[in-house]
């Protein structure tokens, strides 16, 4: 009698252990799937946010109102530190900043939402520089300023080209911008006034040559080493936290 009872109990226990293992495995699988999905969605969402940091369109700028004019901006509009870069496509030190310092700043600060970089035109090398500045604004009109900016600096300083209007339009087309619209924008000099505003504002801030940077209003003249930018940015971040 006793033996029989124990045997039945043993069977029941074995069954409940099997059920338990099944339940625990199902819950583990479910948790892995849910956790994985949560990570996937988060990862996808943050990647798309980073992608949109690169080229903010003028509409986005005006809707938040944090940047007075619709200037080409790299980075989060809520970033506590703003670097206004007064630059020109034919100035070698501007190119040095663009090739060496800017990528480090983007990696270290812009992607983390701590710094935004605003591009302001300050052409000093005559008519070709003015034309290139206008072309930059035309690329910005199509929401593709920074791509065009990188391509333009590369064309001038890595391929040693001087670009006339036709070459500027061709460059835009090679990046997949709307060629006819770009041509119309450039030849009509639609952004001449905007350009003059940039120059006037720069002069008012004390800009005399390129590149000059205004980091939260503090002027940095010339293609200073990355460490100099880092130091001022850190000071400004410290101040913004207080």
């Amino acid at each position, binding site marked *: 009698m006793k033996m029989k009872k124990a045997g039945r109990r043993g069977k029941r226990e074995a069954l409940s*252990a099997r059920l*338990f*293992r099944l*339940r*625990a495995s199902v*819950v*583990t699988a*479910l*948790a*892995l799937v*849910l*956790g*994985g999905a*949560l*990570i996937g*969605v*988060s*990862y996808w*969402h*943050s990647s798309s*946010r*980073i992608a949109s*940091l690169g080229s903010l369109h003028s509409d986005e700028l005006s809707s938040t109102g944090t940047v007075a004019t619709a200037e080409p901006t790299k980075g*989060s509009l809520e*970033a*506590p530190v703003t670097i206004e870069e007064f630059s020109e496509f034919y100035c070698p030190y501007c190119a040095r900043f663009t090739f060496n310092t800017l990528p480090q700043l983007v990696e270290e600060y812009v*992607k*983390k*939402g*701590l710094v935004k970089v605003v591009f302001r035109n300050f052409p000093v090398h005559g008519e070709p520089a003015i034309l290139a500045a206008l072309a930059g604004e035309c690329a910005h009109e199509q929401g593709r300023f920074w791509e065009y900016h990188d391509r333009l600096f590369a064309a001038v300083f890595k391929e040693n080209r001087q670009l006339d209007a036709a070459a500027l339009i061709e460059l835009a087309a090679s990046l997949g911008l709307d060629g006819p619209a770009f041509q119309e924008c450039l030849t009509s000099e639609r952004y001449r006034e905007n350009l003059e505003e940039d120059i006037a504002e720069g002069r008012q801030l004390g800009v005399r040559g390129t590149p000059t940077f205004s980091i939260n209003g503090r002027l940095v003249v010339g293609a200073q080493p990355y460490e100099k930018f880092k130091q001022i940015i850190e000071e400004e*971040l*410290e101040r913004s*936290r207080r």
Partner: protein
Amino acid sequence: MRGTASMQVAIIVLAIFGLADSAYLLYEHLGHEIVCIGRGCSIVDQSVYSEVFGVPMSVMGLVGYAFILGSALAALRLRGRAREWAKTTVYGFALIGLLYSGYLTYLELFVIRAICTWCVVSAVIVAAIFALAAVELWGRTYLPSTSRARASRPAEAGK
């Protein structure tokens, strides 16, 4: 039985710490200064990774710890099969939390390259909860000798 109860109490205490930690991080996210080793907390908080679809990570933490706390309380109160289910639920939520915390810690270490003290604290808390919940759940299957020994001890004492 006593083993299960003290385990659930430990999980409940950890979950309450987790809730407080998340609440503190939410307090920072809402624009207040908090105590932190280095400047990692505000760097991490201001990065693009601190929100997903407008939901701050600290709110995710609050929700996660609330689920864990709820099911651990249930495991403490309920009996029989319902208790087993509640224990499995604690384990499931803790596993999701562990995975997500792992992802966030990876972001801190290798992407943002800044460490937010209270985020690490949360990762440690959730890892501890998971360890306890896993032992509580799987221990019965894989450590049968200890549980049987524990169960038979009172009988022996009665002799």
